């Protein structure tokens, strides 16, 4: 029995303890309740339950938990099991507002995501020793200042969940478009972890629109992962992606969440609007089939909520499809002061200038974008696009004449 339990749970201690406890329960119960019809099966079932309970009590990742998760899935669904509660407590501690934002991201990846310090250092572009010190300092602060290890009270929950969502979105984005030249362009481990943790938060707060919105957003972006980087390691933009390679199951789940939020009839927050924008993209058979007026309308809604220059930039990119590159370029150029150090600003300008046939200016913008971009796949894409400009015969560029 211990062996079968060990096989099932991958841990000898758990198995031994569970078996012993099952025998003890039998000794206690059988004299009063009578011996069950199949004593062997009774013992095994009791020991299994004991082992599952014990594993649930422990907040350890790895084989034990994976095993418990497998078993757990066969059980009748419970809204939040003990394991999930433990993990949630950990998330709220790691994302505590008394910690700096960068520390929250690092600590969440370390404590909840189980990433190593070198992995986190690479992901966040920080020296390994510095990252180690930051995590050590954060743990010391949690202990000395007594940052509580618990899910916040209902009254504080909405505000605290907002902070957690910011961290999870940062983790996801780092995986989706890794900033470092030394890492894979897409870090599936990070996107998967962010999605898994967002699902946990959703189990805690199924009614929260922004939690559903963030999950939908992540799923709809993750669905396009296989089509986003070419075999040669180059970023493939939305208009050039093989839409047949998108993950239909993730898209269906994302769309379902977006529909659910629309049906709720509550004014959406930023994640819900971003999810809706991605739902429009993933509904379209190709880039021409995309409902760009809907995309721009959603960006308008988003700008009213958060008029940050990056959102204005993304709105302008959508405007190019609706009103043409000239109108879009005027909007992008107005962001020069705020986004001069942001590679996507220069990449957007380069693309619009290219479409307007202004090759020289486009080339300069591509150069700047390549200089600032860190992601290897994006650099490869921008470089190819820039070098293709050379194929345009000289004199065709209206701006080159002066």
């Amino acid at each position, binding site marked *: 029995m211990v062996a079968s339990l060990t096989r099932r749970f991958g841990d000898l201690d758990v198995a031994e303890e569970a078996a012993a406890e099952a025998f003890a329960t039998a000794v206690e119960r059988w004299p009063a309740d009578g011996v069950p019809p199949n004593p062997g099966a009774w013992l095994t079932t009791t020991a299994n339950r004991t082992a599952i309970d014990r594993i649930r009590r422990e907040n350890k990742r790895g084989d034990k938990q994976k095993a418990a998760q497998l078993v757990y899935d066969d059980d009748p669904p419970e809204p939040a099991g003990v394991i999930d509660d433990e993990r949630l407590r950990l998330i709220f501690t790691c994302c505590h507002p008394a910690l700096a934002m960068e520390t929250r991201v690092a600590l969440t990846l370390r404590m909840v995501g189980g990433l190593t310090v070198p992995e986190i250092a690479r992901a966040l572009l920080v020296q390994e020793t510095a990252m180690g010190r930051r995590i050590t300092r954060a743990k010391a602060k949690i202990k000395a200042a*007594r940052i509580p290890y618990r899910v*916040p009270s209902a009254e504080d929950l909405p505000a605290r969940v907002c902070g957690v969502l910011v961290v999870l979105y940062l983790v996801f984005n780092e995986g989706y478009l890794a900033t470092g030249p030394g890492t894979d362009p897409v870090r599936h481990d990070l996107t998967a972890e962010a999605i898994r943790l967002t699902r946990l938060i959703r189990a805690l707060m199924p009614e929260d629109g922004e939690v559903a919105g963030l999950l939908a957003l992540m799923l709809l972006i993750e669905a396009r992962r296989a089509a986003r980087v070419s075999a040669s390691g180059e970023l493939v933009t939305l208009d050039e992606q093989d839409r047949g390679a998108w993950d239909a199951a993730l898209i269906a789940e994302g769309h379902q969440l977006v529909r659910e939020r629309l049906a709720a009839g509550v004014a959406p927050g930023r994640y819900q609007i971003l999810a809706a924008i991605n739902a429009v993209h993933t509904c379209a058979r190709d880039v021409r089939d995309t409902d760009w007026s809907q995309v721009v309308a959603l960006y308008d809604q988003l700008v009213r909520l958060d008029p940050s220059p990056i959102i204005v930039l993304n709105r302008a990119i959508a405007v190019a499809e609706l009103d043409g590159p000239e109108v879009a370029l005027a909007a992008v150029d107005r962001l020069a002061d705020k986004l001069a150090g942001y590679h996507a600003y220069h990449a957007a300008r380069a693309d619009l200038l290219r479409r307007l046939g202004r090759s020289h200016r486009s080339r300069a913008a591509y150069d700047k974008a390549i200089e600032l971009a860190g992601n290897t796949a994006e650099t490869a894409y921008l470089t190819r696009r820039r070098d293709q400009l050379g194929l345009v015969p000289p004199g065709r560029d209206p701006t080159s004449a002066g």
Partner: protein
Amino acid sequence: MQYLVSVIDDTAGLATPEEDAAIDVFNDRLRAEGHWVFAGGLGSPGTATVIDSRGGEAVFTDGPFVESKEYLAGFWIIEAADLDVALKLAAAGSKACHRKVEVRPFL
């Protein structure tokens, strides 16, 4: 668990009567809810004297030990179960005295 809530000021002015009244209300709440340990307002940094006896003899120096734009104007010592409770109280304290505050745990 006890926390020091330091009141950080960068103006020369003392608390206004309205601020004093709000601080009184806040202090009453601390007492009523069992968080009160001690509190006090301090004289301006210009009233400080620095003493250094590390060399054996006490050396007295006029003025604060660090010159800075921001200085400690007063403090609360509160009893709180954890940092979440302390931060909530500190947020209310900052509102009452209309100044920035800093929360630090006692060892």
